[in-house]
């Protein structure tokens, strides 16, 4: 198992280098440059040239790439000009906030999705199944940013149960209870679509397992229904559910971009959107590399978990 993990980690290196090349050259190719973004209407060619030189953007592209890569390997991600602080501070702070939001949403959608799938499968074509299938269909069909707005109108403006936006109360806030209170709406909005997907796939995975001979054997032996489903069937179905969870984890992190905008959640999605429009090259590049590294790492974790659950997977 140890060598399997190591192999996967080594294989991740070229992926990350590829990501760094892509994000660097894409950012270099899109029209408009940082000096234009900073100077706005005052961007005369002379001012632009001077500012570009100040920002070190007058060097050849390839040279700039290797300077950036070299610095990054020593842990120096450069300085964000739009935030006027080290890129890594901004990225880690923001990414931490995104992980809180996405993490809670992911736990929510995993538990609710699997639970709904199991109930649905156990009561195939029953009332519970139909109700769940219908709800899930609605959940999958609603764009999360729209759901976010609906939640704000309903629960923040009409019922006044939760705050509209932000992560903590702006004055005198802080603490876990305050954070949880601010998390309810954005995490729910973010979890809905993923819950739907997980529920659907869990249902079909469960149905497939429930048709197996050993389930019939277990029932014939007189094992209790609860144990048949939660013990025998779910455990076997988890092998096909976990990769779905892995994919959905990625989906939840990327879906956080919209939710962060709607709920003014100070996460990395919101940061990247702004950084791109302000052509804050180093911030975009650093942010993308960190997110990609995290994503790769997550995939490895999922694969390892799957290998642990299913002895048939060669390690």
């Amino acid at each position, binding site marked *: 198992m140890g060598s399997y993990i190591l192999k996967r980690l080594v294989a991740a290196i070229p992926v990350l280098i590829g990501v760094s090349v892509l994000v660097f050259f894409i950012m270099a190719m899109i029209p*408009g440059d940082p000096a234009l973004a*900073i100077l706005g209407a005052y961007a*005369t060619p002379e*001012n632009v040239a001077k500012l570009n030189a100040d920002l070190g953007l007058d060097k050849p592209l390839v040279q700039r790439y290797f300077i950036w890569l070299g610095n990054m390997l020593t842990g120096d991600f450069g300085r964000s000009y739009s935030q006027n602080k080290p890129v890594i501070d901004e990225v880690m702070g923001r990414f931490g906030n995104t992980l809180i939001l996405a993490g809670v949403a992911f736990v929510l959608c995993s538990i609710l999705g699997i639970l709904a799938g199991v109930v649905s499968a156990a009561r195939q074509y029953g009332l519970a199944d139909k109700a769940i299938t219908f709800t899930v269909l609605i959940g999958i069909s609603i764009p999360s940013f729209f759901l976010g707005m609906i939640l704000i109108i309903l629960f923040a403006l009409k019922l006044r149960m939760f705050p509209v936006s*932000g992560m903590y109360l702006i004055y005198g806030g802080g603490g876990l209870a305050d954070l949880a209170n601010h998390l309810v709406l954005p995490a729910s909005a973010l979890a809905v679509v993923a819950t739907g997907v997980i529920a659907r796939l869990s249902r079909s995975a469960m149905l497939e397992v429930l048709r197996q001979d050993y389930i019939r054997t277990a029932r014939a032996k007189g094992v209790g229904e609860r144990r048949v489903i939660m013990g025998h069937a779910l455990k076997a179905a988890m092998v096909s559910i976990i990769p779905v969870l892995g994919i959905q984890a990625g989906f939840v992190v990327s879906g956080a971009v919209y939710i962060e905008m709607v709920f003014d959640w100070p996460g990395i999605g919101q940061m990247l959107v702004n950084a791109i429009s302000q052509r804050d090259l180093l911030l975009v590049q650093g942010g993308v590399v960190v997110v990609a590294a995290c994503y790769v790492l997550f995939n490895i974790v999922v694969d390892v978990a799957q290998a642990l659950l299913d002895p048939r997977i060669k390690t």
Partner: protein
Amino acid sequence: MTLFNWTRRAVLAAGAALALAPMAAQAQTPEGVLIVGQVAEPKSLDPAAVTAVNDFRILVNLYEGLTRYKPGTLEVAPGLAESWEVSDDGTEYTFKLREGVTFHDGTPFNAEAVKFNFDRMLNEDHPYHNTGPFPLAFFFSSVEETTAVDDLTVQFKLSAPYAPFLSNLAYPTGLMVSPAAVEAGGADFGRSPVGTGPFKFVEWRANEAVVIDKYEDYWGEPAGAQAVVFRPIEDSNTRVAEMIAGGIDMMVEVPPTALSQFEGDGFNVVEQAGPHVWFLILNAKEGPMADKKVRQAVNYAINKEAIVNDVLEGTAEVAAGPTPPAFAWAYNDELSPYPYDPEKAKELLAEAGAEGASLTFYVTEGGSGMLDPVAMGTAIQADLAAVGLDVSIETYEWNTFLGNVNPGLEGKADMAEMAWMTNDPDTLPYLALRTDAWPENGGFNSGYYSNPKVDELLESARTAIDQDERAALYKKMQAIVQEDAPWVFVANWKQNAVTSDRVENFTLEPSFLLQLEKVVKN
């Protein structure tokens, strides 16, 4: 069956817990603390390093400049300088500084501090020039030397007479920072700012809030609020929702379509016209727009009233010429806007032989001061279609748009949207209407307008010291430019803000700077 029974109970219990728990947490904003909903996270709180109005809104409460704008106007009044004298040739400005002013860190404000500020920005050999870049330093590019004559007297030598100097000093780029704090903070000074203003900096929680407190030892009238919290909320719908929910006490840049939400009790809507003009640059070098009659025709053909009232919901007024009325002293109020007259437009197009011409129109998706550019562009396209012009729109994201428009429209487009907010009547016409401001000379005259008379008027106005004399020159310039129609003059934006009724003494300034020293929060 047991499996599902406990699930139902759990769901019920969880639902009830969710519904009850947060009820208590909905606190009102505290008394004496003003919470302002901003449009974005500030970039830096170093006034020499920033360019965005969003940052200026915080800065003007922390810092002061040698001059300031007289409340409610764009006229220059004494700030940290009590008085000044200008030499007869207009190249020497001598300021007498206010006595007994200290920065928030205790550093005395004196002539040496002023010299430090300008040298830092302008002199590449200055030890703290590396705390930049200073993108708007060219506001003071005519300054050749700053001299501390004595402790409270400072003198600027200019390379040539430059009348906008005094109003540039009132602009945020001219705000005075504490030399000791720059020396201590280096490049991070912008994250722990120190000025002389009515509020002092407390903390900046990244992406959450900037907090400033009343400065108890302020030399002037003490601030009305104990503290101000600036909170960035980028999505305008979310900002509106926070305002309705009471999470913030004040918001700026209310989207036109949301204004009706604040008509009822509990809110005050404040509006103020500012030095803003929204216009179309017309390509006077080539194609149909090279003919003055066609340029006038499009000015007649576009229904500006409909744009400001219907598209912008009354948040702007129709512009008459290149200079916004907010520059009251320099504005030619004898000019009235081109009336909406499609028949006249058709006549002029027929005279010019440009009926049915095809035009390319650059539209941006958004950008500083651009209001609602896509909807406005579409309305303009429809108006021009009504007089037989075939306009095709090309839409660009703001940055790309500037990269296309600033180098000039030649060979690319016949017209392009643009908007400017400036601090002196000199700035926009000088940078965007002179022959010497064509793009190849580093200016913003992207439509290649050229009229020697206008060039001459603008040069003279820049060197005239007397304000009345300058005003007369600007008024003449406006009349000529209106007649020549190098642009379609569309709108002057009224900045707006909403406050809750717990906020008192709040007004918006024509400078678009958010002065909060008098505001009281109950």
